[in-house]
């Protein structure tokens, strides 16, 4: 390994904060020519933020970027491109209605002597570049007519056409088939041979060990370590990814697990998930862990009737049924507190009490007319239980903080007196104080005999609150853990798809 070469691009002490969140806290990274560096980290470790900084979309608050040892800034995406940094995104940003050649050369098309775009030169060069990466594509075809894998190739060709020195691949294999992944690996080898520095972001350990030369681990926006792939193993990387101190006490009370409240049998969806089967008991908190995009929310949405499973059924109490609409779900006693509160949770412009009573209007109205007094009583009862901080229940819900909005959404669903409550990332993006309230309350609900499903990407939360954890990976249930088997290592292992369990019980 030619570890002696100096890096093309170095990041030192990069800090990036968003209101309330320190997304990156003094991270560093080095990318070497002709080598693939894998960036590894959990959800929220700061991987996408660093990509955005490298491509000039975000500006770091502190720290420096060095190209060939010279300090530079990337004030715009163009500046990053000119410095030779290019990214191939998860969802490739290209133009569907333009041809392959136009996509490759947009922004830097070859000109003829009149200053007009030289279409012939553009096509010829596009064909050369595509041939160079082994892509058999017609440069005249519109991008719309290509598959995802071919679009990736076009994006890579574009990266090469601007003579990139640093190529960032952000989960490039997420949407590819096995054969296409193999082709991508070959391509990566070609790029390496051309001396490009590659930053490879992936959750899949088999990929990382297959193609990366170096690794860098981030955790919670901080740099944890870096080194050569040859000198590490999976267990070490997983340990570095999750090795945090659990600095929070979870108010989980031992609940009496009752009889099954919801049994899901063989739920399938053509594109999102497959063969999902599990049983949820009264008084139980069932955690759903997985990487972002593992299909957890999609499963929950189908249980709630927003999408319909193509196969499978669920049983609540005695009766087998398939939930076909959200109102059926609410009638059956299933409620869902969505992850995206702003989009899916609250109705801004309506006051708090009206948000709370929205799904319970049948109960608060008589003969088709709403009774305000009833509405207020219902809203007061549930917002008080959740310790909602608001000047008045008549206040516009949009003026509340994120944590308090979350409480309104939860209050709204509890007011329907459900038997099963699904909480999707219940504490994402809310402050510590509100988190504690939500956790407390979750525990209380379970103690009252409610069956709770908690979808969460935060390992401490999953481990701290759940009686049992189901781990999903790529639309399937990868593993289920209970009791002592619920360790950070086991969860991550199952989520990223490392097979074989080497003494997983050690925490």
């Amino acid at each position, binding site marked *: 390994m030619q570890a002696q070469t100096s890096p093309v691009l170095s990041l030192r002490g990069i800090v990036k904060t*968003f*209101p*309330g*969140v320190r*997304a990156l806290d003094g991270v560093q990274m080095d990318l070497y020519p002709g080598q693939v560096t894998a960036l590894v980290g959990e959800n929220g470790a700061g991987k*996408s*933020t660093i990509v955005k900084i490298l491509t000039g979309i975000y500006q770091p608050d502190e720290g420096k970027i060095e190209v060939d040892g010279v300090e530079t800034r990337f004030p715009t995406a163009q500046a990053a491109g000119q410095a030779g940094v290019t990214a191939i995104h998860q969802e490739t940003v290209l133009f569907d209605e333009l041809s392959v050649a136009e996509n490759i050369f947009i922004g830097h098309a070859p000109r003829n002597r009149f200053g007009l775009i030289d279409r012939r030169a553009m096509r010829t060069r596009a064909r050369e570049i595509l041939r160079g990466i082994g892509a058999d594509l017609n440069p005249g075809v519109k991008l719309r007519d290509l598959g995802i894998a071919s679009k990736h190739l076009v994006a890579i060709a574009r990266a090469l056409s601007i003579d990139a020195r640093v190529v960032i691949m952000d989960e490039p294999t997420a949407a590819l088939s096995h054969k296409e992944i193999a082709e991508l690996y070959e391509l990566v080898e070609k790029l390496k041979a051309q001396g490009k520095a590659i930053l490879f972001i992936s959750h899949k350990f088999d990929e990382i060990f297959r193609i990366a030369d170096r690794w860098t681990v981030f955790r919670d926006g901080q740099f944890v370590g870096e080194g050569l792939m040859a000198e590490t193993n999976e267990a070490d990387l997983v340990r570095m990814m999750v090795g945090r101190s659990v600095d929070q006490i979870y108010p989980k009370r031992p609940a009496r697990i009752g009889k099954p409240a919801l049994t899901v049998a063989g739920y399938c969806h053509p594109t999102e998930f497959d063969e999902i089967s599990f049983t949820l008991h009264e008084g139980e908190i069932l955690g759903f862990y997985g990487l972002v995009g593992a299909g957890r929310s999609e499963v929950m949405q189908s249980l*709630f009737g*927003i999408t319909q499973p193509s196969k499978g059924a669920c049983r609540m109490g005695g009766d087998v049924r398939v939930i076909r*609409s*959200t*109102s059926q*779900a*609410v009638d059956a006693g299933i409620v*869902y507190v*969505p992850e*995206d509160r*702003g*989009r*899916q*949770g*609250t*109705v*801004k*412009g*309506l*006051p708090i009490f*009206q948000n709370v009573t*929205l*799904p319970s*209007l*049948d109960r608060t*109205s008589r003969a*088709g*007319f*709403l009774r*305000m007094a009833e509405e207020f009583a219902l809203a007061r009862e549930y917002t008080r239980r959740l310790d909602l901080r608001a000047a008045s229940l*008549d*206040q*516009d819900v*949009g*003026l509340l903080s*994120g944590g308090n909005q979350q409480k309104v959404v939860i209050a*709204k669903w509890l007011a329907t007196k459900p038997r099963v409550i699904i909480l999707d990332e219940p504490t*994402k*993006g809310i402050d510590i104080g509100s988190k504690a309230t939500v956790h407390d309350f979750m525990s209380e609900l379970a103690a009252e005999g409610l069956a709770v499903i908690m979808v969460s990407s935060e390992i401490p939360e999953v481990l701290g609150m759940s009686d049992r954890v189901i781990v999903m990976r790529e639309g399937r249930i990868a593993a289920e853990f209970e009791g002592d088997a619920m360790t950070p290592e086991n969860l991550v292992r199952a989520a990223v798809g490392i097979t074989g369990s080497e003494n997983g019980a050690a925490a």
Partner: protein
Amino acid sequence: MNLLKSREAILALAILGLLALIASRFPGFVAPANLAAVFTDSSPLILLALGQMAVILTKCIDLSVAANLALCGMVAALMNGAGIPLPLILIAVIALGAALGAFNGMLVWTLGIPSIVVTLGTMTIYRGVIFLLTGGAWINAHQMSPAFKAFPRTVIAGLPVMAWIAIAIIAAVALLMMRTPLGRAFYAVGGNPHAAVYTGISVGRTQFAAFVLAGALAGLTGYLWVARYAVAYVDIAGGFELDVVAACVIGGIAIAGGAGTVAGCVMGALFLGIIKNALPVVGISPFWQMAISGAAILIAIAFNAQSQRAPGRIILKRAEHRT
């Protein structure tokens, strides 16, 4: 809420200011009898604006209301010509208007076509149907029965029936908006369609209901219009749909849906009604009338945009916070 309340207060002040301005030139305008006449004259606009408000609240728009009005008015005149009694005619036009609205609503709901496209199409179709029914012929005052023409003008307790109908409908729509699950659904669907779906409210069905309401009110207004002006032909109330939308916008009904009140909507219609009635009296040319109406609409939109800016920033901060 305070914001909305203050918006209505500002609109009320604007109306008073407008009246004061007119009174300074022409004191007779603000005599109670004349104001009652202005209100009566604005009644069709108020009725249609209330229906349009429901549609706009759900993030849609209904451009076919004036055509619906014209078709229902013509049908009312034809039924009267056939000797059908007035109560039956009233029921029939409301049902027909609701059906025409339902047609719009079905297209929006089941086919998911944007409402502006749907109603742009149906507005031409509805006018076309009038032509098919009559071959382009007019129905004039002498072809209508006296009872048919007299009903909206009959004075009860100092106000004509037409004004009483407007008052009753204002009250009914206010009740619907504030005190029924459907009214709440209008606001929820427009305010956040995603959240509404998660709550078990069907966005499409709610929009459908709004179109039916707008259609039924247009149908009723069709009869009132034809009876009051004692004439029915293909082009009555041509372009009136724009006045209706303008009344809603001036009244603070957010064009993006989910916000607005019945009081605001009624005042928006009255504001336009006063301008239309007063300017000729004050002696301003019709061209200026259009310019002044247009300016009022722009000012109202600018005002709405201004008051919506602050919450926008908060949302942005929160979105950043999440990433």
